[in-house]
């Protein structure tokens, strides 16, 4: 574990990403202390530019504070992204493990099912789903999870296919261990590192997906999100740039941070490859 942490820290980008994520998380946790008013409250005059009195990042068309919106939006964005990723990782691992371990007919059926999902453009599927199911936090999570599990299932399946014929797995079969036990204790722990890496990248794409949905007005109407702020102010982009730029920067930084962390994790799991890349 110590070695792992040291390997992770060797990647400077990963440390930067981790720092940014820590700041975003702190902002999300302490949002209600820093900004006691609700982000929906009209606390100031509309169209206040950044650095004006009582509003650091300006206000929007209705006089709502942008900084407060970003802080509260961080909460929703992070929770949504993490929960939907967790759901799709769980689904992806289960489906991929079953396909890879049992092979044959089971595998063919599951791969066909995965391909069905992969032929439909993910974003459109998410839009349609949320539109049909009426937007709420639950349906947004459901839609994001549904469009992001297939690549992970493929990854896990490929890992299982290559692990299945390793000698230690055959030894476990010979010693009479049950299939579930072999999957859980022999194969899964050994194929987890690529899953963790792609999981962290999936969080990033979930944030983008969620922002895009909110931008189109398909987010939960009761929650303040980054995508919503941008969407609400898109018509005044030329007159009031700050309304969309600051939440945009928030999205950019967070997504970038998750990507950097994902890459650093990858390097830490495959230290040999990482060293080659830097030299």
């Amino acid at each position, binding site marked *: 574990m110590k070695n792992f942490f040291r390997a992770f820290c060797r990647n400077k980008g990963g440390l930067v990403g981790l720092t940014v994520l820590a700041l975003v998380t702190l902002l999300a946790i302490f949002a209600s202390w820093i900004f006691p008013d609700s982000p929906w409250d009209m606390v100031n005059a509309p169209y206040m530019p950044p650095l004006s009195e009582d509003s650091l990042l300006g206000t929007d068309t209705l006089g709502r504070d942008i900084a407060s919106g970003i802080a509260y939006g961080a909460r929703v964005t992070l929770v949504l992204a993490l929960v939907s990723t967790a759901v799709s990782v769980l689904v992806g691992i289960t489906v991929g493990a079953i396909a890879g371990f049992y092979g044959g007919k089971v595998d063919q059926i599951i791969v066909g099912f995965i391909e069905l999902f992969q032929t439909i453009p993910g974003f459109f599927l998410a839009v349609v789903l949320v539109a049909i199911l009426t937007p709420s936090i639950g349906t947004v999570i459901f839609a994001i999870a549904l469009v992001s599990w297939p690549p992970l299932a493929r990854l896990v399946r490929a890992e299982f296919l290559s692990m299945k014929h390793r000698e230690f797995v055959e030894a476990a079969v010979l*010693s009479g261990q049950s299939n579930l036990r072999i999957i859980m204790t022999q194969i899964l722990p050994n194929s987890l590192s690529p899953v963790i890496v792609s999981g962290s990248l999936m969080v990033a794409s979930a944030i983008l997906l969620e922002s895009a949905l909110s931008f189109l007005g398909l987010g939960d109407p009761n929650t303040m999100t980054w995508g919503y702020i941008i969407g609400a102010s898109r018509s005044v982009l030329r007159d009031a740039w700050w309304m969309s730029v600051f939440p945009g920067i928030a999205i950019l930084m967070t997504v970038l941070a998750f990507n950097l962390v994902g890459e650093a994790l990858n390097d830490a799991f495959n230290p040999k490859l990482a060293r080659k890349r830097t030299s």
Partner: protein
Amino acid sequence: MTALLEIRDLSVSVVQDGPSTPVVQGVSYTVNRNEILCVVGESGSGKSVTAHALMGLLPEGELQISAGSIRYRGRELVGLTSKDWYGLRGKSFGMVFQEPMTALNPIMRIGRQVDEVLERHTELPAQARHAKVLQLFRDVMLPEPEALMNAYPFQLSGGQRQRVVIAMALAMEPDILIADEPTTALDVTTQAQILTMIKDIQTRMGIGVIFITHDFGVVAEIADRIVVMRRGQIVEQGAASDILNRPQAAYTRQLIAAVPHKPQGKAAVTEASPMIVIDKVRKTFRSDKGRQVLALDDVSLTIQQGETVGLVGESGSGKSTLGRTLTGLILPDSGSVKIDGRELVGLSRGQWREHRRQIQMVFQDPYASLNPRHRIVDAVAQGPIAFGEPRRKALTHARELLELVGLGGDAGDRYPHQFSGGQRQRVGIARALALRPRLLVADEAVSALDVSIQAQVLDLLKTVSGQFDLSVLFITHDLRVAAEICDRIAVMRLGELVELGRATDIFYRPQHDYTRRLIDSIPGRQWSKPDLSDAGSSEDAIAYAT
């Protein structure tokens, strides 16, 4: 004789901050024109690192030459720039690696690959190059060189591929050919052909050959002079006949003593009722494209209680398939496998479970056969726990077994990566024994090990099979090893069982042509290993060949 290459006090160390222990330390040897110098050593002895150092092929940023000199025809090579090396490699040095498949570009015709070397280093016109490639292919004795020019690597056999690699190394007519374990990945009959060819080319061209190997049989076959290495240092060097017959250093004596050789045979097992009866088992593998390989062609074999049966064959002979069929990892197409008269073929997974613990397996690759994330005591105890033994009792028993295979103390609490290959193989044996099986299938269980470790693991197998009254099906490509520990040997070829008999009969009086060929191919057959048990080693050689 003139020295082509002189290595003086060469040390190679790991690149790192602060002091580091050298990988190779103070190595000196010379390579002369017109001779084969064998560098012998076990894994980690520094024999390959030295060879890479003198080709200027040390991995940059990882290893570096820290002291000493390498002189080629009086020219100092240490400290050359990569541009200077470019001219030297190919023209002065040719190199042959262990794995011929990875040394060739899989999507380029082999004629073109050899041609490319000539194109890069010479001014020859295309036609002259073509003639030269043909000549090279004839030199390495490839069949139908004209036709083979247009073949791709995957269309060739392993031995043919290695010949192409050697042809490439020889293309620029180098003075020195460096061969790093060139026959280790090949079957024994192919190995014999390649060894003859290398020897032949060396005499014909009068070049110096550095031949790196771990196998004293191979050494006895081709060496003019020998360098024995251990832990980065030279233990002993001298003329081949001296070292082979009168080794001085204790380590060399130990290495030679460990070479399986001249089996004594075991006492005949008293006829008991057969425990395992394999009857007309047949298995065909089909690829998606409809290609069929008949891996087992009506194979029948019986194994008695307490008997060790060797299953010998080259790659693709179906020997591993038979072993896996016994353990139920592969289902045969037809035929029957009976244990104590009860049929195993066609049982469901649940029904198999009852018999599962009676047949256990020891795997080939000690690095792949243990789960890297489990402590070894857990790895050993998992089987009994799966069969319902209480955890505490299974763990105690596992520790006893580890003690039995020589891994006592706190070894059980450690993880596989903390053990050497030989120790891991011991864990594999303990794991198989934990279920108290009656038949142990050992699939190339010692092939990946160094010769001295191999001897220890074989001893352990012998001991436990006696102690637990185990039957062992010992699968190997090495007839020498099989003859040493087996009661009976079955020889397989292309899915067929061609000969079956007492180990000593097979070894000294083979009946089938193929068995005879296998025995003729054993490297170093003419060398009669000195008896190292007494101090004055005997010189009178008794040829035991057919």
